[in-house]
């Protein structure tokens, strides 16, 4: 309805002479301006790559690829190695995913296959709100609520049941890979749920009806028919979550313990790429120190770009098949 008045307005303007020529010009200007903005995004991404590369060149020249395999991080001696951080980033991210994927896919199945549409919409709305909670708030809850609770209940129970495993060895001081992994799992679950739900909903209803008509139970239909159909898209959601977990900074920084050590035990403190940048970048002095931190940002950037690119391809593959 609002549009009608605009059309009328356009009609009125159109009748005044001389305006037409300016409008022609306006057409080209608006095309060029919007095109310039679109291109500027390519420039921004190019600039990100260039700045990261140019500013980390010193580290690459000094240490080469050995930087990624060296586990010594000693700013006083001006020696830098990235391995403890890469290790910590991967361990926490995979731990987070290991917990988040079953939970997230399970919830997505409930929301897409079982829940009545109204309930499903309300729950999805709440899940989306959960995704909007800032990561520093997760960090706050992490140090003051989750870590004390883990000390009190979770870790003693884990040690009692699985204490003989090397991953649960040693004393637990609170800040650890395990705390970071737990926080990450809570943070990425909403992403897995909302993308997986979309993908599951994109599976044609006929597939379900056919399976049910053949006598399959609801669960068999979901597990044997719907899930395999949606598996590529669900992989996409998992990759998306992985990229987020790898790059997550604040919550991890606040609970991982910030100790550049490689340890098999999930109960010991560690460090991650994003955390070391957040902690040390503002105070870093010395070109090689700064350059090493930026080099790690470049590694993180490369990692997330590759994983994101794969996730997008997976998701595009499933959602477009629907139309075909």
């Amino acid at each position, binding site marked *: 309805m609002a549009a009608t008045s605009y059309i009328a307005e356009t009609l009125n303007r159109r009748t005044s002479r001389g305006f037409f020529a300016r409008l022609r010009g306006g057409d080209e200007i608006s*095309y060029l301006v919007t095109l310039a903005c679109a291109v500027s995004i390519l420039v921004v991404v190019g600039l990100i790559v260039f700045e990261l590369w140019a500013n980390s060149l010193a580290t690459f020249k000094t240490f080469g690829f050995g930087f990624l395999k060296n586990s010594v991080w000693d700013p006083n001696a001006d020696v830098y190695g990235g391995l403890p951080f890469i290790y910590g980033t991967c361990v926490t991210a995979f731990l987070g995913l290991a917990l988040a994927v079953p939970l997230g896919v399970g919830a997505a199945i409930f929301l897409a296959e079982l829940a009545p549409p109204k309930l499903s919409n309300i729950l999805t709305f709440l*899940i989306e709100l959960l995704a909007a909670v800032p990561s*520093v708030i997760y960090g706050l809850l992490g140090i003051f609520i989750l870590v004390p609770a883990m000390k009190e209940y979770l870790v003693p129970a884990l040690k009692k049941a699985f204490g003989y495993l090397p991953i649960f060895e040693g004393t637990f001081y609170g800040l650890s890979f395990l705390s970071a992994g737990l926080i990450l799992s809570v943070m990425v679950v909403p992403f897995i749920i909302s993308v997986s739900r979309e993908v599951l909903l994109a599976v044609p209803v006929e597939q379900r009806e056919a399976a049910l008509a053949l006598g399959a139970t609801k669960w068999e239909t979901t597990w044997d028919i719907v899930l395999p159909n949606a598996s590529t898209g669900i992989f996409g959601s998992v990759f998306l979550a992985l990229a987020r977990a790898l790059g997550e900074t604040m919550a991890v920084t606040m609970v991982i313990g910030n100790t550049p050590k490689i340890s098999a035990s999930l109960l010991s403190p560690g460090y991650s790429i994003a955390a070391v940048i957040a902690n040390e970048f503002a105070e870093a002095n010395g070109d090689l120190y700064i350059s090493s931190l930026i080099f790690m940002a470049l590694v993180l950037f490369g990692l997330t770009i590759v994983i994101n690119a794969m996730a997008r391809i997976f998701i595009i593959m499933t959602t477009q098949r629907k139309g075909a």
Partner: protein
Amino acid sequence: MMMEISASRRFVNGFMLTLSGICTLLAVSVLFFILGYLTIHGAASLNWDFFTKLPKPTGETGGGMANAIVGSGKVLLLATLIGVPIGFLAGVYLAEYSGKTFAFLIRYVVDLLNGVPSIVIGIVAYALVVRSMKHYSTLAGGVALGIMMIPIAVRTTEEFLRAVPNSLREGAVALGATQAKAIFSVVVPAAISGLTSGMMLNLARVAGETAPLIFTALGNQFWSNGWLAPTATLPVMIYNYALDPAEDLHKQAWAAGFVLLTLVLFINVTARLIIARGPAAQRR
């Protein structure tokens, strides 16, 4: 004749379906845990001083975060001024002008930019702004968050413009409007409620960002003058105070967390309700 479903199949069916329900319950309950804890700890520590006073020097109790609240506002204003126009116009290009291949490239790069960790964006803003100006500033923080706002701005604009029916465009052009006129005075106004709520969601998303501000806007114990001085921001204050050993600062951190979360969730709920009731949703 009905086929009998064996007891074990029926059990697996019931068990797994219940389990999926429990997963949902667990995931949703996290939201209420978060809300509950922040309300208990945050609202209790919140008082008028929090909004009106400056932080007290180390060792003294009391004080507030007035400078951080204003600082966050300034950084977010800059971010909006940078991110929204670029993202909006690029979105217009994708929805209204572009061909196939180039648009695919842009869309793909936008998605990649959306996936870049915020800390990496922070480093780039540091290298671009802080290093060339030789000091930390509100501006640098705004640039960092502004870059982060671009991808969502693009996708929102494209999505909502595409939801506008083609008949409106055709009508406008049939009446003699040029394409530019049709876009900016017919199509965009028709999508305006969706666009505004999308931008609000976008703003809410970066409002809680901490990592890119740590070494761009840095922090400040006092009021920050102009746009070129370092400034305190709410999320960075939460981070610093939470890690500080002083008990009183923890209370302040909870209070700040409560304020930040309330703000972010309020914007989210409002914007999502507008989108859900908007014309775009009804056509779907």
